[in-house]
């Protein structure tokens, strides 16, 4: 499967994401600049993490208004898989492709550490590699990962199985409501998550728990690792 990585000024996890996609899929992703209005024919579009536009106004707010977002929206509507990690998640929320918002961490501190994630829905395009209820390790690094949605939205998301990852008990690093760490849209083809699975994909990282998300999204399950 082919993938694309979106580039915006101020993102800094793009290289890690490109390395992860290259190692796992066996071919490098194409890169798409923020002012591009077309995205090549790919199966997965990824917005990596970082601090696009210096987090000015609100995290992801400016990036979400760049021309490439219309192309991402069209891809998502046509069923192409779209994934946003960290700042990428903030951008997808600001663009309205996912419900809710991300706010300043409840501690007001930047958190950079490893947390545990519970796979609360293993029946999504992005989490099929895991078992329902499995707890995986994953690094986080953010200042604004405190997920919020109103009660009505939360009820709808829970009913639809849109919450994919929750911080496992006692590891919520940011005050996210209902310990939410990662969600999908109603159609299930757009994933947003604060933790960084691209930073835990091989022994040199100290583990490969994050790999399953990419293997799920890239239809590599059951196939030999590239």
């Amino acid at each position, binding site marked *: 499967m082919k993938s694309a990585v979106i580039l915006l000024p101020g993102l800094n996890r793009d290289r890690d994401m490109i390395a992860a996609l290259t190692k796992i899929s066996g071919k490098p992703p194409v890169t798409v600049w923020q002012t591009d209005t077309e995205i090549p024919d790919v199966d997965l579009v990824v917005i990596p993490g970082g601090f696009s536009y210096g987090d000015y*106004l*609100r995290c992801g*707010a400016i990036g979400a*208004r760049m021309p490439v977002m219309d192309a991402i929206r069209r891809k998502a509507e046509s069923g192409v898989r779209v994934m946003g990690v960290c700042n990428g998640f903030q951008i997808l*929320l*600001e663009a309205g492709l996912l*419900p*809710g*918002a991300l*706010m*300043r*961490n*409840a*501690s*007001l501190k930047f958190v950079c550490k490893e947390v545990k994630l519970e796979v609360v829905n293993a029946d999504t395009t992005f989490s099929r590699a895991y078992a329902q209820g499995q707890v995986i390790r994953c690094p986080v690094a953010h200042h604004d990962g*405190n997920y*919020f*949605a*109103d009660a009505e939205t939360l009820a709808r998301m829970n009913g639809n199985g849109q919450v994919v990852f929750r911080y496992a008990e006692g590891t919520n690093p940011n*005050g996210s409501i209902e310990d939410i760490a990662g969600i999908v849209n109603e159609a299930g083809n757009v994933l947003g998550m604060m933790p960084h699975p691209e930073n835990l994909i091989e022994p040199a990282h100290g583990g490969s728990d994050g790999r399953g998300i990419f293997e799920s999204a890239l239809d590599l399950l059951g196939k030999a690792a590239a």
Partner: protein
Amino acid sequence: MIKARVTVTLKNGVLDPQGKAIEGALHALDFSDVAKVRQGKVFDLELDTADRAKAETELKAMCEKLLANTVIEDFAVEVE
């Protein structure tokens, strides 16, 4: 030229950890009457138009499209 001020505040019910921290700091400075602090943002804009109605419509659209995240924030527009 029309001058306007847009104020963006967190909606009621949305936790405001920064407001809480400021509240705590004010208490530490002995402002013991402070019962609650909510933090927000102010934008001062100048619009190259003399059409007040148009300015008001545009300012509202600016808030909805960019200046506020209406999932968590309310906005108010004042035109001078």
